[in-house]
């Protein structure tokens, strides 16, 4: 009777209080988020203005702009370090870059197909007592030992140049095969078959004309390992 009624009122009051607290927390959270958004918007607008001003200044002046505030010695050194790192990055684009190590040099051979840079390969060389390969990341199907035997001791530049030719040609063939598979997947039946060196490619493709489809089988052989164009092409109608 009365007690049950009282309990019910108590429960209701409790629920209302809990809800009230929830609403308050929600409002506080919203207020916090709102404040943060304002703060970030202001920061962002300030930065935008700074960048716009910088753009105007740079368009107005030609050549080097010296910092109005005298930079600290540390800032100057950091600038020089960044500038040298940028030049070293350009060497990466030339195909042969590297870094001196305690016991020799670590060369990095970069590869590219036309304008797209692909994998890079490392060669850690020791220079004493004679030039030798300490470690490398050249794949085993590239005749590294043979090239090293021919040139490593006598003409290290030639060694790197020949190795670079092999690697670039391999990567070029592989890239072309990948692109072929990707861009002509509708015409190619099944998958492209290739060996690890990517100098033998076999695939079936179909050419459609009105209602007829002609199935072809292609075999591409790249006889020159330093070349990314085939030396022998056999196309047969299956």
């Amino acid at each position, binding site marked *: 009777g009365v007690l049950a009624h009282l309990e019910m009122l108590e429960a209701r009051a409790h629920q209302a209080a809990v809800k009230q607290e929830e609403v308050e927390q*929600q409002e506080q*959270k*919203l207020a916090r*988020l*709102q404040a*943060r*958004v304002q703060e*970030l*918007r202001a*920061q*962002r607008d300030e*930065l*935008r203005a*700074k*960048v716009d001003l*910088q*753009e105007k200044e*740079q368009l107005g002046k030609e050549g*080097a*702009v*010296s*910092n109005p505030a005298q930079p600290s*010695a*540390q800032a*100057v*050194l*950091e*600038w*020089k*370090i*960044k500038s*040298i*790192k*940028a*030049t*070293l990055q*350009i*060497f990466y*684009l*030339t*195909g*042969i*870059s*590297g*870094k*001196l190590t305690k016991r020799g*040099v670590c060369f990095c051979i*970069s*590869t*590219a197909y*036309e*304008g*797209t*840079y692909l994998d890079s390969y490392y060669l850690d060389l020791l220079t004493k007592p004679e030039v030798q390969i300490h470690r490398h990341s050249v794949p085993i199907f590239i005749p590294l030992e043979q090239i090293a035997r021919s040139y490593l001791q006598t003409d290290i*530049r030639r060694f790197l*140049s020949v190795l*670079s*030719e092999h690697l*670039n040609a391999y990567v070029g063939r592989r890239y072309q095969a990948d692109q072929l598979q990707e861009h002509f997947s509708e015409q190619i039946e099944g998958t492209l078959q290739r060996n690890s060196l990517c100098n033998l490619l076999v695939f079936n493709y179909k050419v459609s004309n009105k209602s007829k489809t002609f199935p072809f089988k292609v075999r591409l052989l790249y006889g020159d390992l330093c070349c990314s164009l085939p030396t022998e092409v056999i196309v047969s109608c299956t």
Partner: protein
Amino acid sequence: MDNSICQGYEDEIQSLEEEIKLLSEKYEDRQRESTFFSDEEIQMSIKSFQRESQGGSRGCESPSDLTAQLESLETDLSFLMKFTGIQFTSHSKKTLEKTTNRALQKHRLSGNCHSLSFQLEFQLLEMQNKENVSAVITDLSIIMESGESSDVSKFVSSTEEHGNLLKFFRSLSSYAEWHGHRRHTFLHFK
């Protein structure tokens, strides 16, 4: 209903934070691009930096770290230039576009390779996807000093067409080396 408003704010916060990060990177990049310090200024800075830090412990990096890093980088660079025969006399880059996973820079480069001089301009697009960073060269333009030779100009225009910067440097390197040999031999017989 409240939840969606909260979510809206949280989304905006995230996008603002990203935008702020990109804007400040852009500002720093451009600031760096327009800065230049001469070799003397750099030498002076090295000396004053070492003096400053002898007085007490410095903030971020110790002097020996920075000067050692600079020395090691300079040694690497001069080794590469001597080894490959490629010397860069000037290099400038300008950031045209930069987002979280895409950066487009315009580079101007001049130098020489075994006494054959060149001037290049190209755009480098770097894109970050899940696994790796890809780099693609576009708008390659090459000016070579010995451009009168028809072989050289044919080679140059075909490399320009395909944006084949790496091939340009590899071929230039071997051509220039042999060019030097040929000149020596020719002069010997003159």
